[in-house]
């Protein structure tokens, strides 16, 4: 018996000029896992924020169990049995699991018998859904995967019937993803309803029974998952057909262009994050560096690009030493030597948000001719160059005078990518090249990287997206706890094997 638990009718929401949601109609059936898929900026998160009561819709109605409700705040939605697991967890780091869960309910349960009852209830919930969470552990001691379970447990305890998960797998290892999916399936077995927001097609195919596709604020398709496939979904998301697996010729490997020997790097808190790492990248090769976020990749990239001091070890570019513990070339000097760096956290590091687009398009190259001469900026030349670049990389809108913060996330990324790739670097360090980029742009970026490789560039690709590492790299190394724990030739390796290496168990 299929009955709708959550119904949305003609939901509209705009921010200023931008209509984030247009006439959304969506029915979610009880006891299903319903996927919502779409590119960045398609309006998925806005829609779910409306359902969770964070935003109010401009118009439209929401029904829970076929009764119309008004949602003014998350408190209302929790009362109606809607729970949300956010992309960024809302947990107090130095509290225990139990304290976090009763937070907001203290008045009722913090003392005496009631707290004991809460504990029993929670332990029962843990058992039913095999969540396996220890109520007394401190949040900061838990891995990301477990923190996510705490969020799920919190929603369960508050009586959620519908669980909204916003991009839940972005920060997990493949093993953790498997565990999460098990939990979600057991929730479904118990009659709970799950709304899974994602841009990953695999997850939709693996987990969901129904899927809705959003594009530019509208729901453009609804289907049973069994009746569709990855290619069809991708096409619906983008509005045209998309190449999912990149066409890649065999590599013409040249000499070693970039070499790292016994590198050790500390972070700002003086914790050693990169431990005795050695790497070699050949010209005409993409070396993939896989690993779960926070295992030293960020510090490694920063050290290689001259941003961070090297504790010990040496770095060589085309056989010449560029960094050791005594001195290192700064990022600008490295750029002059043909080393480009696309930082992981681009909005934070790669751009100045309060600059105009054209100012960001020469950022880091601003003291080179023709962009400046004897310290005077050559505005006309910069503008001509910017227009050309924005055209070539399809940055929208094509207005170099627009403030960078007024571009969408994906277009901000394109500003950086175009800047760094256009200088045809000999060595390219790329961190998370497609994080936050939509699927149409991913295809474009991947093709660019392959083109650069074919022209003889040595590329280091750091990514937490295993699929990306697998589809682009010629060789793969895995980083765990600051160390390189394995090296594989791409064609001989499985996701499973890499996943185990990433988790540090192999």
């Amino acid at each position, binding site marked *: 018996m299929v009955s709708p638990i959550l119904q949305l009718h003609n939901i509209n929401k705009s*921010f*200023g*000029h*931008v209509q984030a949601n247009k006439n959304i109609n969506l029915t979610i059936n009880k006891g299903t896992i319903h996927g919502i898929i779409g590119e960045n900026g398609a309006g998925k998160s806005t829609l779910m924020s409306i359902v969770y009561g964070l*935003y*109010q819709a401009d118009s439209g109605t929401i029904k829970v169990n076929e009764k119309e409700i008004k949602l003014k705040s998350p408190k209302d939605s929790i009362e109606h049995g809607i729970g949300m697991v956010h992309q960024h967890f809302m947990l107090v780091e130095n509290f225990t699991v139990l304290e976090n869960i009763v937070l907001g309910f203290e008045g009722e349960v913090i003392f005496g018998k009631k707290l004991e009852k809460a504990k029993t209830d929670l332990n029962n919930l843990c058992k039913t859904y095999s969540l396996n969470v220890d109520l007394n552990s401190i949040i900061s001691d838990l891995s990301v995967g477990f923190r996510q379970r705490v969020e799920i447990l919190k929603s369960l305890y508050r009586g959620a019937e519908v669980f909204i998960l916003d991009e839940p797998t972005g920060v997990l290892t493949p093993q953790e993803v498997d565990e999460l999916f098990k939990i979600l399936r057991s929730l479904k077995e118990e009659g709970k309803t799950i709304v899974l927001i994602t841009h990953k097609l695999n997850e939709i195919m693996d987990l969901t029974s129904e899927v809705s596709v959003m594009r530019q604020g509208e729901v453009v398709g609804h289907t049973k998952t069994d009746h569709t496939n990855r290619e069809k979904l991708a096409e619906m998301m983008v509005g045209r057909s998309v190449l999912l697996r990149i066409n890649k010729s065999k590599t013409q490997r040249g000499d070693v262009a970039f070499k790292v020997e016994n590198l050790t790097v500390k972070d700002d808190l003086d914790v050693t994050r990169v431990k005795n790492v050695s790497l070699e990248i050949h010209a005409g090769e993409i070396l993939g560096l896989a690993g779960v976020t926070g295992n030293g990749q960020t510090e490694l990239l920063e050290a290689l*690009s*001259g*941003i961070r001091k090297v504790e010990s070890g040496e770095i060589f570019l085309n056989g010449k030493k560029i960094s050791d513990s005594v001195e290192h070339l*700064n*990022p*600008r*000097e*490295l*750029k002059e030597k043909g080393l480009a*760096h696309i*930082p992981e956290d681009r909005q*934070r*590091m*790669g*751009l*100045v*948000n*309060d*600059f105009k687009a054209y*100012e960001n398009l020469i*950022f*880091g190259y*601003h*003291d080179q001719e023709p962009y*400046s001469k004897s*310290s*005077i*900026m050559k*505005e006309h030349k910069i503008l001509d160059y910017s227009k050309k670049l924005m055209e070539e990389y399809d940055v929208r809108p094509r207005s170099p005078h*627009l*403030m960078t*913060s*007024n571009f969408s996330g994906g277009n901000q990324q394109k500003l950086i990518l175009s800047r760094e790739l256009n200088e045809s670097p000999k060595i390219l360090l790329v961190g998370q090249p497609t994080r936050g980029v939509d699927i149409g742009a991913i295809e474009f970026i991947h093709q660019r990287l392959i083109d650069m490789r074919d022209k003889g560039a040595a590329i280091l690709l750091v990514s937490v997206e295993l699929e990306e590492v697998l589809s682009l790299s010629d060789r793969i190394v895995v980083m765990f706890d600051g160390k390189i724990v394995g090296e594989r030739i791409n064609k001989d390796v499985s996701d499973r094997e890499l996943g185990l290496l990433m988790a540090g168990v192999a």
Partner: protein
Amino acid sequence: MSTTVDKSKVPWWVSNLIVPLVNLTLALLVSALFIFIAGENPYQAIKLIIYGSFGYIEGFAYTLYYTTNFIFTGLAFAVAFHCRLFNIGGEGQAYIGGLGVFLVAINVSFLPVPIVWILSIAGAFIFGAAWAFIPAYLQAKRGSHVVITTIMFNFIASSLMVYLLVDVIRDMKQMGPHTVALPEEMWLPSFKDFAALFGINIRYSPLNASFLLAIAASFFVWYLVWKTKWGYEMRAVGHNTQAAIYAGISPYKNIIIAMLISGGLAGLLSINEVLGVHHKIVSGFPAGYGFTGIAVALMGRNHPIGIFPAAFLFGILYQGGSEVTFDMPNITRYMFVAVQGVIILFSGALENLFRPQIESWFVNKLNKQVEA
């Protein structure tokens, strides 16, 4: 979320003209209320302000004289602010700048006068910059906040100058804490002399050629901040230090450069005061211009084109305000300090109070026009 405005759709004149004007009007309304409570007629007071600052030529010249000082200190604050440094030490930097002017002028008096002027300007700039250097260094290398260090350096400058003016460089023939006068041929051409050329007779006016220097400094700042590599790098460090490091731009270097230029510009105030008005160093000549410069810069949105009218506005308030205090016994000098405070409050601290409403109102209105 109803007040979220798509910034790219807001016309420049709304955010840069309408919003400041609304803030200013509100500030003046509140000030009028103060005057009313003090027992005077606000309408009369405003008439007096306008008469005092525009009504007769000496008054207008005074307005421009104050404007000159505010342009220097406003530009000084703005340059540092583009590197996100709150240089509130303009007062001390101007004071020490005066020492530079005097020492240079008195020691090179044998040279032709225009060269003495140029060297004195350099002296003012270098001494002001030097006084800003120590806080800059402490900020760049040690992370000591410039707000703390520059304000302390104001007090140090003040004490140092009092010591020098009493014990070292005082004109020993008299008792007051000031130096001997510079030779008359070195005095900057005054507005009085200029007016005399056209047969206009003026009793006294402090307005002098420094006003032109202030305008030149405005162009210099505009060019520096928006057209040169240094300005580009300073703004990059100011807006996003991490990104600057990524791009190989040194925050240390740029913090120091921005503070040196800022201190130097504040130092130029002493060209007006020492070379143009007093022709010697008198104790306490910066008289709060350094602090008012902060408000001028904030109100002018740290852009020379905004700083000029803001400086002029404060010039009107200073000059018109003193006119009011002469004629209205219930209104003291401090009343106008309060009025300035209200203006600073509305155009600085509460700058964004009505911005979203005003901007979204205009955006909606313009959209309707487009649709219609």
